[in-house]
């Protein structure tokens, strides 16, 4: 857990991404034909369902189904475990995408550093 922090604060800040300033590279660099993420639930549906703002992400359609099931099955809330699992695994995939974004940013920064050093070595000759 601490390796990236040690690198960032311990002198490797040129190759460690800053999560507050991401992304710094063009979106399709190295990934041609990149598709945008699709949002299934509409903003009106999320507003009608009074979903908290922090949960109105790209998995919110699973959350809406889960909320409807919980409202219908109350008080036996354990009946909605299948929908709960679907929402949880969607959130998990979303988190994995965040990790991939971070790693892509990091590798692009390292590549940028390699290019810079190679050009500096060429210019020094």
């Amino acid at each position, binding site marked *: 857990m601490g390796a990236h922090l040690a690198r960032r604060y311990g002198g490797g800040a040129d190759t460690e991404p800053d999560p507050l300033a991401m992304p710094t590279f063009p979106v399709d660099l190295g990934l041609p034909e990149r598709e945008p993420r699709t949002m299934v639930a509409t903003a009106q549906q*999320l507003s009608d369902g009074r979903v908290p703002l922090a949960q109105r992400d790209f998995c919110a359609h699973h959350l809406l189904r889960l909320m409807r099931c919980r409202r219908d099955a109350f008080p036996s809330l354990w009946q909605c475990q299948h929908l709960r699992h679907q929402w949880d695994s969607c959130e998990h995939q979303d988190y994995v995408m965040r990790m991939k974004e971070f790693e892509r940013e990091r590798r692009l920064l390292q590549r940028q550093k390699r290019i810079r050093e190679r050009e500096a070595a060429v210019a020094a000759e």
Partner: protein
Amino acid sequence: MAAAAGRGGVLWRQAASWLRATRAAVAAPSGARAASGLTKDQLPGPYPRTAEERAAAAKKYNMRVEDYQPYPDDGFGYGDYPMLPNKSLHERDPWYQWDQPDVRRNWGEPMHWDFDMYIRNRVDTSPTPVPWHTMRNHFLIFLGTMLVMFALGEIYPSYRPVGPKQYPFNDLYLEKGGDPNKEPPVVTHYKI
């Protein structure tokens, strides 16, 4: 009841005499008098100038002449009232059989000027179990360490190696209170 009253009030007379006897048993001793019963020379007076005045004041306050020390005569109006050590009643022996146990005082003992401040519900001048400078140093070390650690946490925050969370609808522009008449800044997120 009507029959007893008709026989000359015997029961009433018996009750009255019983009451008088009970009250006499718990009455104040003959030497006691109310605070309103003091004469002029028993009240506090002006600052004592001569040795005889000091002796008379010490006797008035039930103190020895060696122990009697009035407040300095600097215009604050203490007069000849004795200056007793500024110790609260917490420091007096709790196990001794005081005449008045709640204020830990014996009858006739001179009262401190700030007696009502030094009662056991209020100011406590008891010595601390640990020297004052030790306590102060320990507290300052703890406070300094905590402040330094929190400052470091602000300068070098800790985070997971993940990118920021992505939200739809231009990062929830309208939901966060954006102006519906203006064009929102377009934000698109991509699959990876």
